[in-house]
């Protein structure tokens, strides 16, 4: 018997954090413009000391003003999607649950677009108007999960296959809604339909939204983490968890709301990036086991690493042009999804 201890938890998270740091440094270095490690370190220290004005070269400005914010965005979005995936897998008792596969990301995208449409009609200052998008995305995500949950229930039980099928159909339905909304808005300043459907980190959201994203991620992940032990028991079923002392409805509501917030925030700044919430939790489970006290922080860090890597590939493989990051994650994620599905059915 070797139960998880706080020491081991911190050690493992420390290793993952170090790995994330290395990946971030590599991502900063790579791109259409090459920078030296020395220059990178010097410029980053200047940023930390609030001496950005002293950064002399154009190369330095590219790294600090363009690459760094984008990489930090990838860190938070990747972590959010991955924690959301872990949560949905536990909540729906389905190892193939993922915000993208179940159409939840598409729901959040529709919510974002509708919020964008409404906010352009309202006479409120742009600072506050910008916050309507993530709220719309949250509502879109929350409503979609509820719908998929109802679709996936058969005779009072969640049926795994029906749930996935319901999710896939919901996703395709919502994608056509996105296309429809986008075609009626042609010529406006809105980002295109592919942005929402495939996801991209190429356009940096306003600062107020970035703060909201960071704070929302910490609060929602913290809320999910308070239920980590309960989620371990919930995997065996609602009845069994209840007999072991889990307040099942409370845990479900906390995780449902928090995971909707995570998905909504991530989608409102980057569109529907797929498969991170599927790939990363599976990889982490293979390495660290399925204890959510370890799995949730590991998924957050792993999701950050995965999306920074994917975005770096998206930025660099066809430079100076670039790929949608969602295309990169789908190329890896979709085959893995099929593999896991077949393994599960056999």
């Amino acid at each position: 018997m070797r139960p998880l201890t706080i020491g081991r938890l911190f050690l493992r998270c420390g290793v993952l954090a170090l790995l994330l740091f290395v990946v971030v440094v590599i991502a900063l270095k790579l791109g259409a413009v090459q920078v030296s490690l020395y220059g990178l370190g010097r410029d980053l220290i200047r940023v930390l000391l609030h001496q950005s004005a002293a950064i002399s070269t154009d190369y330095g400005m590219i790294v600090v003003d363009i690459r760094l914010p984008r990489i930090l965005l990838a860190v938070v979005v990747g972590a959010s999607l991955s924690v959301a995936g872990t949560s949905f897998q536990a909540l729906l008792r389905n190892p193939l649950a993922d915000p993208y596969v179940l159409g939840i990301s598409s729901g959040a995208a529709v919510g974002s677009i509708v919020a964008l449409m409404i906010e352009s009609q309202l006479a409120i200052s742009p600072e506050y108007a910008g916050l309507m998008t993530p709220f719309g995305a949250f509502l879109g995500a929350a409503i979609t999960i509820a719908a998929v949950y109802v679709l996936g229930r058969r005779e009072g039980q969640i049926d795994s296959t029906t749930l996935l099928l319901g999710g896939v159909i919901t996703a395709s339905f919502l994608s056509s809604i996105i296309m429809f909304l986008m075609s009626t808005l042609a010529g406006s300043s809105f980002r295109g339909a592919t942005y929402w459907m495939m996801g991209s980190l190429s356009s940096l959201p306003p600062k107020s939204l970035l703060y909201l994203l960071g704070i929302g991620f910490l609060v929602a992940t913290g809320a999910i983490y308070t239920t980590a032990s309960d989620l371990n028991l919930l995997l065996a079923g609602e009845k069994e968890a209840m007999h072991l002392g889990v307040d099942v409805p409370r845990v479900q509501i906390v995780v449902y709301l928090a995971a909707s917030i995570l998905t909504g925030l991530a989608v409102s700044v980057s569109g529907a990036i797929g498969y991170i919430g599927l790939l990363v939790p599976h990889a982490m489970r293979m390495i660290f086991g399925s204890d959510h006290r370890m799995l949730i922080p590991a998924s957050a860090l792993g999701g950050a690493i995965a999306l920074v890597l994917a975005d770096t590939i998206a930025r660099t493989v066809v430079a100076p042009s670039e790929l949608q990051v969602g295309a990169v994650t789908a190329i890896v994620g979709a085959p893995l999804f099929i593999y896991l599905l077949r393994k599960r059915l056999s």
Partner: protein
Amino acid sequence: MSTPIRTPLPSSSNFSDQPRGNPDLRLSVEQASYVYAPNPSQAPLFTLEALSFQAKPGEIVAILGPNASGKSTLLKLVAGTLQPLSGRIFLNGFPTYSLVPKVRAQRIAMVQQESRLLFPSRVWEFVLQGRHAHGHGVRFASEGDVTIAQNALAQVGASHLADRWMDKISGGEKQRVILARALSQQPLLLLLDEPTLHLDIGAQVDLLESLRRLAAENRYTVLVVTHELNLTGEYADQVVLLQKGKCLRVGPPASVFQRDLLEHVFQAPLTVEMTSSGRPRVTLFNKS
């Protein structure tokens, strides 16, 4: 279950302040009944008529009856997951339905037929889950928890399985591990829902032998739902005989196991004889 009612009991295992009743009477079912109805205007699908029985610490009570006799409903009522339509069910003087999930899990452990796992876990991880109700929030297993889990595994003779994967052990081994998890909850009341259903004869006898030993050693009150006549006759201290939602008889096996009564309840020709140990033994005949 959405609005749990707080009970005045502390969450520790201190039961000295008993509000009512005889301290020897751990479980007291008093005129409890239940009705399943899709909605109030329609005729009920199933009715469990009011029934009463009591159980002391260390006693094994078998809830016996054919399919659809109300066995599982009675078990859920005792477990406190269903609210009785009328009557009350007390565990150490407290109505089981009004306990919050955590306190309930500290006092009542349920062993279900099978435990489906979404992701593989080790046997020791599974048994440690029984300690969940004794912790707070996100907690890490203490040395005490580990000791309790190890003892629970030892009590069911499954210490050697501790590091195995749950999906790589046999049905009988799994049943023992599920029982060990229930023991690590350190309950007062142990509920088992058809625990012998998927076990071969040897494993069935093993399980019931260990239940009898555990009930005696740990002073659990054990409630077993079953339709196994001979295992009930051999191992139960009390039998609650149900048929179509009616409680026909409560008492020791020797008084409940009467040929006419059992033939009527189980719709099968049979004979009952007493063994030298004073336990009834049932033999079934061919209907033709």
